[in-house]
């Protein structure tokens, strides 16, 4: 059963196999949670939404259409819940990102791109990852969601297109813009790569 595809697992759960659901949860728990975490920028809210997403999967399992992939379905649910949440928290979200903090003179998006300690020093302290996380969170929403779906879950562009409701070419453009923006923010971390 562990090798079964997501749709088979969901079908098994609908027939009463609770273990199939646990397997499904195990597959998606980390990427789904991080998608919500980077979208909400708040662990507590991310956990609430994470729970809501799975509750909807449990409740609406019977409504799942066989012609769609489970991954696109579950991320569509997650995205919709996240958007609802962001609408409610719009002002707070803007404040947390762009407002200057006490003792700081620049917003997050500018501070993460500032040259700081060396890469090695940052890596040792785990700050590189923290900076990357902040840089991702600072991406425009439409770029961030595409980036996260691609990076965290490895969804194909056409699947991401299905989740966010735009053409696949638009998804690619957003992904490219997201990477360019991240590269600008994290320019001090870059290293040359092979073709």
């Amino acid at each position, binding site marked *: 059963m562990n090798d079964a595809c997501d749709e088979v697992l969901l079908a098994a759960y609908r027939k009463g196999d609770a273990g199939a659901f646990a397997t499904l949860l195990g597959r998606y728990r980390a990427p789904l949670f991080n998608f919500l975490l980077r979208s909400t920028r708040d662990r507590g809210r991310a956990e609430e939404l994470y*729970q809501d997403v799975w509750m909807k999967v449990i409740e609406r399992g019977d409504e799942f259409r066989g012609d769609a992939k489970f991954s696109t379905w579950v991320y569509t649910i997650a995205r919709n819940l996240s958007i609802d949440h962001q609408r409610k928290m719009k002002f707070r979200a803007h404040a947390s990102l762009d407002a200057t903090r006490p003792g700081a003179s620049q917003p997050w998006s500018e501070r993460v791109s500032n040259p700081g300690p060396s890469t090695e020093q940052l890596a040792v302290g785990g700050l590189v990852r923290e900076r990357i996380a902040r840089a991702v969170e600072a991406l425009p929403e439409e770029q961030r969601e595409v980036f996260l779906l691609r990076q965290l879950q490895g969804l194909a562009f056409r699947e991401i297109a299905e989740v966010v409701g735009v053409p696949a070419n638009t998804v690619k453009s957003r992904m490219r813009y997201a990477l360019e923006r991240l590269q600008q923010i994290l320019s001090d971390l870059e*290293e040359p790569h092979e073709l």
Partner: protein
Amino acid sequence: MNCEECQEQIFELIEREAVDPDGVREILMRCPDCRAAFDEMKAALAAAEQLPIEEPSVALDAAIVRAAAARTRQPVPSRKKRLQPPLWAAAALVLLAVGVGMWVIPRAAPPEGEAAPAEMKRPEYTMAAERMAPKRKALPQGAAPAKRRPRSHAEGAARAAQTVQAPASRGAADLAAGAVAASPPAEAQPTASRALKEVPADGLVARCKRKVAGIERRTRMDEEYVPKPEEELAIGQCYQALGKVDEARRWLRLAATHRETKARAEEALRDLRPK
């Protein structure tokens, strides 16, 4: 392919979706700017790979799995099924329908010849009612008469038992005569009622007697049973048809105390007065 086209394809090349990967690679080998753009894109992807992955709490996952397991133990019917009534409700409805049918359908067979179709033997009171009815608006020449259902004796009795606002009193008429009646024209009703008194049909009398006896018996047996306004009206009309003026007046007065039967009961009472 020029540099601009190349740089637009860099991302696709990395994602292995480039339209012309060989063309892009060729330009990257000879153009420093395009090569720099490629390196930047790769650097961004490499940085993105280091995005920290956090875990949801184990307790939260455990709670979700418990909820999922509980759901499998108590499967919720689909929306379609939820809209369907439970089996016991359907059975109760069937029993109710049978019970009502037993109540409404006359228990004794009608006198011989009474159940004959109207076309074969029209009841006298119906013909009398038509003779005495006010002149109805004549149909235009050549116009087809309104479609009418074949009228049986019982149906005719029900029609006669009704007075004004016939549709509302359909249940009472059924109760009184044991048949479903078509709504008669309002202007014909008082006259039909008079005709009914003048020429009571044997079948109607028999059925009225049974119904009145049934309702009165039920009233005696069940202290809490209170006849409905329509039933009071129907009993009064039955007594009226039977010629029992005092009984008819008593029941019609009761019926006249209810808003929904007041008009019809008062009209029936007015018909009683000349007697």
